[in-house]
């Protein structure tokens, strides 16, 4: 039996056909990782096709995870361990691997047919292509079928257990307790006893293989030191789960129900699925006939006094645009969640991107400002959802909450927050009915600080009024085509959104001092790789600081001054430079964008390299004017 390799962190990638159960295997392994007290981050990377043709490179589904001691914020640049279920999975993953990586390949899948499908002219196991890796071929398919033989399953049904066989082996390699997975299998397949028992047998067989097989000399074992996380009660969480619970928490904090109205779209649908099981928390869901109906029903819900929320991804958000304008002019609270994906059009439905920032900040007809915020990590989606609802109800406005495909699926360990410590969400209470001056105008007596009008809803006696998409008089609320009034209303709508900045915290630093040579500005899900990259480069005493934006519109009031303290500004984002444009527009600065739209998250190494290239040489010629980062 081999000794343990003790280490601080390790990156593991599972890759197979989209029908091989890679996502399930990965999420189960991560669940056990969480319970063993390690920090982790994950990156599910799967194709758009539900069942792409078997054995092809475009049908490869992968689950990458980074497990470790130090704060882990990314799924890791280069995998140290790859479990490849077929030649196509090996071919797709090979360029990503770190040198000397451990390759566990499903040996019996390397048939001529599968090699051809993957585009291999020669068997890579024999061509020398894998010489620089540690290759461990295991007949996963055959061993699994032997293990499940007693249950009388067909060859194809039995074959489906092979992810559990491989999981059993992986659990042995990482010295993990099998019981949480056994519990999960028993619960999941409670009504399908044969499947349940076959999966359990496969899991145990894979585990025992590590223990007893002659080959085990070649299979290394890993011991990852326990992470030094802040004390408290933890759970694993994905962005979808956190967002769903955050919306429910916002309802609880505001003491109002939540009605979530949505139309299925990748990668936003899991939020609908999750929320449809949260009825106990005062959440209702409505699957509408289309994207437009979804936002309209959410507007109708808010008009009726519950918190209306809609959700989609970029193309669906585009369809909702007109209705957002209605919510703006009618001064109705609403939260719009955008789980961004690669575009334009249908684009890359399952791949992540941050390219809907323009759409969020600028993308409506007329002068129609909407506050925009973004979540930075899976767990942060919880707090971002609460913040979105808080702004919507305080200012009586729609709010755009940006998430993305990566955040939706990514998992991390999460310190469970104490709901009692979060400020309640206040609503603009209705006034006392007063018969003397009619009720129409009372609906539009706005709070001078927030410009939020009272949330008067059908059913409240003595407060009947009419509201709509036509411009209304700023005082009486009646239809008005008066030119001066339209100017005042447009100014009011702008002032309303601008006033959000008075209620949000000042921008603070994630890393480094508040002045210096280079400031990295991030937003959204790039938090993980940017944080690690800046931490890395700061180890070499480089003058680099890092700040990460929650509020994208309006921006925090102190942000302009903060940016002015640096010679250079650097904005890495998964689009073609959209935040750079927004900062240039709103603050008159000139950041250097770093753009990547490959559908893959940033690598730490590429960020470090770029920052290094931006830093001035040690000796700087005197008197050279600083151009970049100067505030105009």
């Amino acid at each position, binding site marked *: 039996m081999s000794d343990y390799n003790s280490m601080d962190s390790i990156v593991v990638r599972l890759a197979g056909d989209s029908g091989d159960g890679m996502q399930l295997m990965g999420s189960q392994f991560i669940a056990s990782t969480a319970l063993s007290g390690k920090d982790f981050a994950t990156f599910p990377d799967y194709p758009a096709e539900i069942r792409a043709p078997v054995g092809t490179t475009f049908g490869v589904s992968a689950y990458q995870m980074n497990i470790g001691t130090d704060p882990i914020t990314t799924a890791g640049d280069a995998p140290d361990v790859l479990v490849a279920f077929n030649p196509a999975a090996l071919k797709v993953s090979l360029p990503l691997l770190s040198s000397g990586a451990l390759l566990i390949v499903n040996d019996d899948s390397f048939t001529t047919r599968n090699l051809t499908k993957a585009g291999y002219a020669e068997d890579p196991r024999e061509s020398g292509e894998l010489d620089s890796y540690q290759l461990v071929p295991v007949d996963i398919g055959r061993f699994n079928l032997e293990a499940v033989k007693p249950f009388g399953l067909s060859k194809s049904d039995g074959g489906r257990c092979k992810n559990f066989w491989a999981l059993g082996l992986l659990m042995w390699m990482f010295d993990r307790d099998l019981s949480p997975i056994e519990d999960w299998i028993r619960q999941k397949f409670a009504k399908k006893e044969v499947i349940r028992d076959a999966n359990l047998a496969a899991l145990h067989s894979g585990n025992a293989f590590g223990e007893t097989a002659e080959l085990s000399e070649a299979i290394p074992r890993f011991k990852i030191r326990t992470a030094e996380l802040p004390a408290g009660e933890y759970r694993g969480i994905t962005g979808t789960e956190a967002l769903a619970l955050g919306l429910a928490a916002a309802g609880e904090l505001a003491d109002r129900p939540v009605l979530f109205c949505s139309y299925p779209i990748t990668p936003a649908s899991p939020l609908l699925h999750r929320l449809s099981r949260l009825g106990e928390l005062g959440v209702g869901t409505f699957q509408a006939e289309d994207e437009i109906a979804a936002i309209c029903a959410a507007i109708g819900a808010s008009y009726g006094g*519950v918190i209306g929320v809609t959700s989609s991804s970029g193309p669906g958000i585009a369809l909702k645009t007109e209705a957002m304008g209605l919510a703006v002019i009618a001064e109705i609270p609403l939260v719009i969640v955008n789980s961004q994906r690669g575009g334009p059009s249908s684009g890359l439905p399952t791949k992540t991107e941050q390219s809907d920032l323009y759409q969020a900040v600028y993308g409506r007809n007329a002068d129609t400002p909407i506050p925009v915020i973004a979540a930075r990590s899976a767990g942060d989606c919880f707090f971002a959802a609460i913040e979105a609802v808080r702004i919507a109800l305080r200012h009586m406005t729609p709010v755009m909450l940006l998430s993305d495909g990566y955040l939706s699926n990514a998992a991390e360990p999460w310190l469970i927050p104490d709901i009692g410590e979060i400020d309640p969400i206040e609503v603009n209470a209705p006034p006392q009915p007063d018969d003397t001056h009619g009720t129409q105008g009372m609906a539009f007596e706005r709070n001078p600080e927030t410009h939020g009008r009272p949330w008067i809803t059908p059913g409240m006696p003595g407060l*009947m009024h009419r509201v709509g998409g036509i411009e209304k008089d700023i005082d009486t609320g009646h239809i008005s085509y008066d030119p001066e009034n339209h100017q005042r209303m447009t100014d009011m709508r702008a002032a309303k959104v601008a006033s959000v900045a008075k209620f949000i915290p000042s921008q603070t630093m994630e890393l480094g001092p508040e002045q210096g040579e280079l400031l990295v500005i991030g937003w959204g899900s790039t938090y993980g790789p940017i944080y690690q990259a800046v931490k890395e480069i700061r180890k070499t005493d480089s003058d680099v600081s890092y700040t990460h934006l929650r509020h994208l519109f309006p921006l925090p009031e102190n942000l302009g001054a903060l940016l002015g303290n640096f010679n250079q500004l650097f904005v890495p984002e998964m689009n073609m430079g959209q935040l750079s444009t927004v900062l240039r527009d709103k603050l008159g600065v000139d950041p250097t964008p770093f753009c990547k739209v490959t559908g893959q998250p940033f690598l730490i190494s590429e960020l470090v390299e770029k920052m290094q290239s931006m830093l001035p040489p040690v000796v700087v010629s005197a008197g050279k004017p600083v151009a970049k980062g100067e505030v105009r």
Partner: protein
Amino acid sequence: MTAMLSAKDFTTSQEVRWCPGCGDYAVLKAVTKTLAELGARPESTAFISGIGCASRFPYYVETYGFHTIHGRAPAIATGLKLANPDIDVWVVTGDGDALSIGGNHLLHALRRNVGLNILLFNNEIYGLTKGQYSPTSRRGTRSPSSPGGSVDAPLSPGQFALGAGARFFARAIDTDKIGLGEVLKEAHVFEGAAFTEIFQNCIVYNEDVFADFTDRKNAAEMQLRLRHGEPMLFGADNKKGIRFSTDNFSLEVIEATSAPDEVLRHDETNKGLAHQLVELTAPVALGVIYKSPGDSFEKSWYEPRKNGLKRSSSVADALRSTNTWTVT
């Protein structure tokens, strides 16, 4: 006890801005009168409209009102009805709003049977945008966008509704106070989506398009006023009747006096009959054509939610409804 309200109590201070002589005035009057007669409460009544001449309606009714965007009123009304099923929700829409840009939402509101009173003001023309042909315009309609006459086949609101799975379909004429009032009351008590087509005369862009059956002089011969369980008689002194012809599987007009036993009795629960009735052109069927009560969408939606939308457990518990571990 709250005092009975009058039609005037349901009228706002806003100056009505439809063209003088527009059929909408008559509908507005009939609706406010019906609300008063039904004992409706202004605070628990909401009028939701889309875009078009008819959609100005909410501004003139002293209840809650929401003038929304083109075609989307049924979707917004659905959200309101789910948020608060106790509200009496009326949707006011026109032929372009409901059947062109908003066709999808109307279809789904009807098949879900959402508890809405949907009033379709059908004038077979786009009035607000100045007279283009609409989805219900007859073939050959000359308009600014169809100077040579439109070539589109018109949509039948009745067939659309029945095809979508509507459980209530009725028809009335804008200026027919009694007939419209009766239909509005039936629609009001119906649980689910009650869809009423109102033949509304646009005096500017499509005047007298329905005159062949709405004019007083044509009324007797051209209007078939349906009452559940009663014989389908019309014409001067009710001399004519409707019979089902087994030869060509359709309705036909007969002399009622010569074959009184062959005259059909209206059965508003018979969908096959409803499909035939909405196709009649001479006479035109009016009143409640089809009514098939069933659970409303909101009733079914709330069925498993014993506490409504009230929370019965806390997020603090939900956050721990999975494996947790403690770091010390």
